[in-house]
């Protein structure tokens, strides 16, 4: 056969066509008794319904965690999870933490050094020493 095909898998580009929010589940843990959960309890009562309504793509679980500090956990598409302890925080601060988890990609935080990362080839091409005029030193 003159030419054979090589089997691969097409790479996903989240956001190029459809966008899938990487955060798929958020767990809210609170304690009914402890004082560090006071802000969390009022957040669950007041702000969580509107947060859940604004983000229907996130499955939200609320469960008590007695005698422990309140925690928000985000579960992500890549299988990782992120947890933030929200002890003694006000409802507004907890809302910011929940938004942080919602917008996270689930990857480990890493420093980006290049302004653009792309899987496409460079439009300009790669410089070649064998083409063009002969350089004189």
């Amino acid at each position, binding site marked *: *056969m003159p*030419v054979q095909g*090589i089997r691969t898998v*097409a790479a996903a580009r989240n956001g*190029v066509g459809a966008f899938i929010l990487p955060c798929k589940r958020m767990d809210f843990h609170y304690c009914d008794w402890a004082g560090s959960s006071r802000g969390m309890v009022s957040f669950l009562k007041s702000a969580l319904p509107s947060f859940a309504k604004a983000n229907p793509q996130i499955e939200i679980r609320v469960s008590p965690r007695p005698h422990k500090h309140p925690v928000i956990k985000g579960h992500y*598409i890549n299988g990782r999870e992120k947890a933030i302890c929200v002890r003694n925080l006000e409802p507004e601060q907890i809302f910011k933490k929940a938004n942080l988890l919602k917008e996270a990609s689930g990857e480990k935080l890493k420093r980006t050094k290049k302004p653009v990362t792309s899987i496409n080839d460079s439009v300009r091409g790669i410089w070649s020493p064998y083409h063009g005029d002969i350089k004189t030193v």
Partner: protein
Amino acid sequence: MKRLQLQRWSSSVLSPRVRTGSRLQHHLYTGLRCQSTFSPVPQAENEPLTHEQPPVSPIPSPNSQKSKYTLPSPPVEAARESAKLAALHARLYLPSRLPLETLARSLVDASADPNSNFNNASLATLGHDLLTYYTSEHLICTYPRLPMAVVFAAMYAYVGPKTLAAMTREWGVEHAATPGGEVDPGFLQFKRIDPGTEIGEGQVNGTTRPNDHRRWRVSMSSRVVYDNEFGEPVQDPTKNDGLPRPLPQGVTAEQASANFVRAVMGSIYLHAGRPAAKRFFEQHFLSRHLSLTELFDFSQPARDLSRLCARESFEPPVAKIISETGRKSRHPVFVVGIYSGEDKLGEGAGASLLEARSRAAVAALKGWYLYSPLNVRVPSSTEEESSAPWKPVHVDLGEVIV
């Protein structure tokens, strides 16, 4: 107990999809299973109670916890209560016309629930046909000169089972440990293969090909005719080579995930219509990145190029050195171009003259095969009303035959 009578005498009244199969009749006395992806049929209050069933029967109501454990897959009414399922629906931006019940059904594999009224086999068949149709028309119209082997590989890369399984992961769908009526319907439910079972991937015994037993060399033309859309032989369930091989009871996670994605495509087509299905395909499948230049595997590119030039009645290709450096050194570099008359067909650099020549021939062949016309339309774009009439597109002969 009125529901029971509806099952008994309503086969001529209900539509065929609402009607449940003989398996349901069999199950009638172990656990009543009144499920359907349709909205429930309104029960007439004045139905005559015409049969001898006593008014109190041992059948538990379908909502009770006990009957849930007897069902092979979650009951239909559980779909409305599942947060996971609603989140998946919203995450995929599925149209609101696609009900949660259908999404729950598309998550039930045939290995989990063999009843075809409640598993995703029919939806997956439809979705598979749609996916392969849209992908093949896109590939053939966009790249009209693509060799058939590369078309097969590109089909596999866009809608092959590996890609669909990866998409299931990217959609955040989790697998149920084991299927059952009490499981959250937001999980993908399938029966797993027992550990140690031989899967036998790649070696299909007993295909649908005629003369299968003769082990003839499989040509590309016969792959087009007999094999499936990925160029793989199709297993014929009636043939088994005389070997007593029991069919595997479960499926792999990859197969179940692939069937789920296909079923979602099929259910979008059924509930939201053709334009929505097309849009879903473009957003989730065509938007994936596939570099077609990396799918080619040439064995003798220089020979293929000379055959191609002969077929297209170009002048025979001639390889010429464009530039070179360090011929006598440890790392020589030759830049070779292949010319047909005055036209340069391709160029390649290599550490030896032969290597550079074959790279140049590969570049020339890829330049030919990957030709793509501008503003290309596909046949399915004419399916909508008020679309422009179809003008035939250019589709080339394909690869050279050596």
